[in-house]
């Protein structure tokens, strides 16, 4: 049996379209560590494992719809983000639509420097500590590059709510980063 790294992405995709279990396993091995942090950002570590599994099942189910437009990783990432949002919606965690007054930014040059000194795992965990609603809006806007209009549509809220949630999440995150950094010192 060939090593996982010797298969091209196109070969793996073709194998998965045929339902080849070996190709599916190799694809999973190649992308699990890439998609897992995405799931952690949205779900927290506790639930990320379940969504990782659901996401791959959806990928294998819909892989025949991937037409090669755009990167495959980007296509997969969208599926995982949707899987996370679906899971959050199922838990009714997005029922937070009250507008929050934009929080004052705590960030300064010092905090940005602090950010550089934190590991990605710590940053992911800090994001995961936010409430489901806040981290969903923050992830979509800041890390996935959605506009507020798109965030509002994805989460079923108004644009103003999206702005409020992102602002609030950013403020809380900066505060947590500062606390973590101070605790480390």
């Amino acid at each position, binding site marked *: 049996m060939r090593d996982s790294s010797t298969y091209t992405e196109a070969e793996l995709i073709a194998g998965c379209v045929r339902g080849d279990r*070996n190709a*599916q396993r190799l694809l*999973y091995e190649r992308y699990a560590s890439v998609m897992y942090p995405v799931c*952690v*950002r949205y779900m927290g570590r506790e639930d990320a494992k379940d969504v990782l599994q659901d996401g791959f099942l959806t990928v294998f189910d819909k892989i025949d719809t991937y037409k090669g437009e755009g990167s495959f990783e980007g296509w997969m990432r969208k599926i995982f983000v949707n899987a996370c949002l679906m899971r959050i919606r199922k838990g009714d965690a997005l029922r937070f639509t009250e507008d929050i007054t934009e929080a004052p930014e705590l960030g300064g040059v010092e*905090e940005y420097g602090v950010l550089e000194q934190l590991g990605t795992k710590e940053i992911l965990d800090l994001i995961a500590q936010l409430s489901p609603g806040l981290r969903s809006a923050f992830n979509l806007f800041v890390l996935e590059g959605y506009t507020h209009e798109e965030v509002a549509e994805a989460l079923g809220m108004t644009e103003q709510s999206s702005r409020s949630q992102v602002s609030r999440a950013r403020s809380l995150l900066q505060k947590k980063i500062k606390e973590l950094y101070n605790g480390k010192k």
Partner: protein
Amino acid sequence: MERNEFDQMLRNRLEGVIEPAPDVWEGISRGLARRHRRVILRRFATGAVAAAAGLAVAFLVFRGPQDTRQVTAPIRTAQAVQPVLPQETPDAPVPEVAPIATQIAQFTKHQVTAQASVPKPVVPETTQDIPVQPSAVTTEPAAPVTPQEETTPVTPVSEGPQLTQDDLPADFWQEETPRHKTHTSQLSILSNLTTVASDGDLMYKASPMHSSSQTGTRATSSVEPVSGSPKFFSPLSLGLQVAVPVTDRFTLSSGLTYSYLVSQYDMLVDKVRYDGAYNQLHYVGIPLTMSWHFVQTPSFGFYALAGGAVEKCVAQRYVFASNTLREKVGGLQWSARVGLGAEYWFVPRLGLYFDPSLVYFFDNQQPLSIRTQQPLQARFEVGLRFKL
């Protein structure tokens, strides 16, 4: 507020981040197996429904004329009978004779149709529809005719014998033929699902009994299952059977069945290990079942059944890493079965049945499958049944 420097920094830090993921492949594999099973079931159900619908339509279209048990009493009209009336009473009214329908109705519940609307010449054959004297009745008073017009001497209507109970055939008092006669040969289209209790968690060793090399003619490659957690999909079967009544309550049925078994396990192919490879087995079999009907109503029937089957594996295929390998399998698979059954006839000749039963598969050196791992299985057979 739009994206700011903090956002950009955070994004840069998390761009393309990789973190070892917990191993969820086992769960994914189980999920894929479930979906695969659902796809197979859906195809199977679609095929079964299409086949049943096709057969039902064919049956309804091509079935022969039914015995409606209508009694037809040919009635002679004035033109046909032309009775000779006595000369001395040319103006006298023709004596009233009760239509035969009325007479018969006095004796029986059977439906009677009097064909009085279309005058027909008297044809001897038509009078055989009912064994009564056809000349006994008429539906309307016969018109007076002159003697010159008379060509055939006919007994005057009023003098014809009256219909009595003795004139009716011996079986005339019997009820109509039961709509759901149990003493009828039947044709069944069946499909069955078997419960699989050993899905996923079995450990087994590559023993000779399950080695394909032991059971059949070896192909060019050697295939051996290796220890692991095999998964067995629910076997699917389709069949066609004919049931013949032996006595009032006993029925013997036999026919042809096809079964499809799929397993998934880790295997060595020419000493190379492949995880999660599929093994597909195709069996064709001949069942023989005796049923004892302990409840019989026109619409429902309940019965106990016992029997057995002999099956031959006609094809075996391994699917691994986009490759397939076929192997022949020798020997026969014998099995015994006991169970209960229920049938429901929703039209006189077409019914549904459901036979839950227990099946035991004997150890006949067959390839590894749910039958070798779990010889005793619960089977749920459903199908359509036609009365021939």
